[in-house]
Every structure is written in C-alpha cells, then in structure tokens.
C-alpha cells in the first residue's frame, strides 16, 4: 500500500492503517501534531478511528514560530 505523507511516499504498510498507527511508525505519536487526510482536517479524537486507504494523502502539521 502506498500513501503520501508530507509529500513523501510511505510504503511501510501492506493494508489500510489507522492514523494512530502511522504516527507510531513515524515516531510522532507523542508530539503535538495535527493531521489532514485528503484535505480534511482531523480532530485528534479521530486519529484512532480514521483508516488510511491506499493512495491517501496525509499532511502532518505542527505549530511553529511565525509572524
């Protein structure tokens, strides 16, 4: 299965995975990030129940310094 995460291809999974599993694989599970899947923003409570399908486009965003 192929998903795109922050513009990079991710082939670590063979079948659909929950967002939570992706975050664990990327070692981001404990960090304050926010996720968009196929241009839809997810609330953190939705991470464990949102299944990423083949071809999903995921953006993992964090709060940064800015003016």
């Amino acid at each position, binding site marked *: 299965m192929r998903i795109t995460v*922050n513009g990079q291809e991710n082939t670590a999974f063979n079948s659909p995975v929950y967002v939570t599993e992706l975050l664990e694989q*990327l070692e981001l599970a404990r960090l304050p990030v*926010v996720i*968009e899947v196929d241009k839809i923003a997810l609330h953190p409570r939705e991470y464990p129940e949102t299944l990423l399908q083949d071809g999903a486009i995921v953006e993992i965003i964090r709060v*940064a310094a800015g003016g």
Partner: protein
Amino acid sequence: MVNALIAEVPDPMTIAGREFDSRLLLGTGKFSSNEIMSSSLSAAGTEIVTVALRRADLTGKSDPFANILDFIDPEKYLLLPNTSGANTADEAVRLARLALAAGLPNWIKLEIHPDPTHLLPDPIETLKAAKTLVEEGFIVLPYINADPVLAKRLQDTGVATVMPLGSPIGSNQGLLTRHQIQIIIEQATVPVIVDAGIGTPSQAADAMEMGAAGVLVNTAIAIAEKPEKMANAFRLSVIAGREARLAGLAAAQEKAAATSPLTTFLYQDNS
C-alpha cells in the same frame, strides 16, 4: 499621580467583542531561541501572539522549535495562528481548519502571499478566503496591502480587523503606505492594525498617532541585538502613540508661532 490619572481611563482595543489592554501584537518568528521569544513577549506586554503551521519534520531529527507552545502561556496570550505558507484561498482555509483541529482558537490571521520574493498579499484570494472563513465562524484578521477599497470589501464580509502593511514583511522600512493607511483608518468600521514593515518604535508610535488601533511587530524585535529591551521600547512607543492620538495632535503650521511672549523684557536703547 499623573500615571494614576492615566491608568484610571480604560482604553481597551476591542476585537470581535474581546477587550485587550495592549495594542501591540507580536509575531514569534526569527527569535534566536524560544526562551528569548518568551521573555520578549513578556517585555512587550502583548496579549496577542501569532504562530504558524508547518509540516512536521519526518526525518526524526530533533527540532529546537518543536515545542514552541511550551513557551507561550495560553492563559496569558491569545494565540493567533496565521495562514502563512498558503498560496491560495483553499490552502488558507485548510490551514485555518487545521489550526482549529489542533486546539488553537478560532481566531485566524489570514495571510496569502504566493510570491516568495516580495511576500505581498494576494487580494483576490484573501477576499475569497475571508468570506469562507467568516461563514465558518472564524474570527478573521486579514493581512492586506494598504488598499482602502479592499479593506472596505473585507469589512463587508464580516472580518474582525483589517491589517494593512506599512511596507513589505520583514523589511523594517516603516510606513511607506501611510497615505493609504490614513484612508483605511478614516473609513474603517473595524479596528485597523498595521502589520508588517514596522522597523522602529518611532514608526509604531507614528502608526498609533495616525489612529491605528494597534500594530503587529515581529522582525524588528526578534532580530534586535537585545530583543527584550526592544520589545519594551515598542511597548512604550505604542502607549505613547496611542496617548498622543487620544490627546489630539496639534496641526502642523506653515510658519513659526512663538511659544514664549514676544514682548520686550530688557530696556532697549534706541537712541
């Protein structure tokens, strides 16, 4: 005594029904460390602080700014996420929704500047995004070029402020757009916050004297030799400019007008 007298007169800046004692908004970019950023916020006496949203680092490298929120007390400051990085209205709307999902307030500094060289805001995409975000219930603070017509069009959509630029972002060139800002202030039905380009406290005071409701400063403080000291200087200048505005500025005159009596005081020997 004088200070007590001034302090008795409350003069809050009201945005979307919320009152702020400080009229100085601060950006968090370009500081050399989170600690210096945090103490500068404190020295500035600000109550509104902007942050950005960026892609998380997937390389596993540690990022010194990863925990910026640990350095900004949300009880003390209103976090104002911006949409920088968005090139279109759609992207700005997506960023605003992400900010909300991240638990940030529904206040959004709307900025869309697709050109990386001049960072000038795109008026058409900004107006489009403003309409959508206002409809979705966001409190929208749009960053715009100092265009009075656009400012008016944005006001009509229900934005909470308009934030015209003094000069390009990070340029420290001051109020190059002062005449247009003047018009925007004259016709404003929402607070006008001068954002971008303010490089010195005197320029911030100038904007406040002109009748701006507030100013947003980032670079001038962040890259100063002593950021905390500069933050304090801006704090004082914004107060000074506001006081001057409320005091009613004396108009400039073409000719000299003596401040001391011109009557003679010494015997003049005309013999």
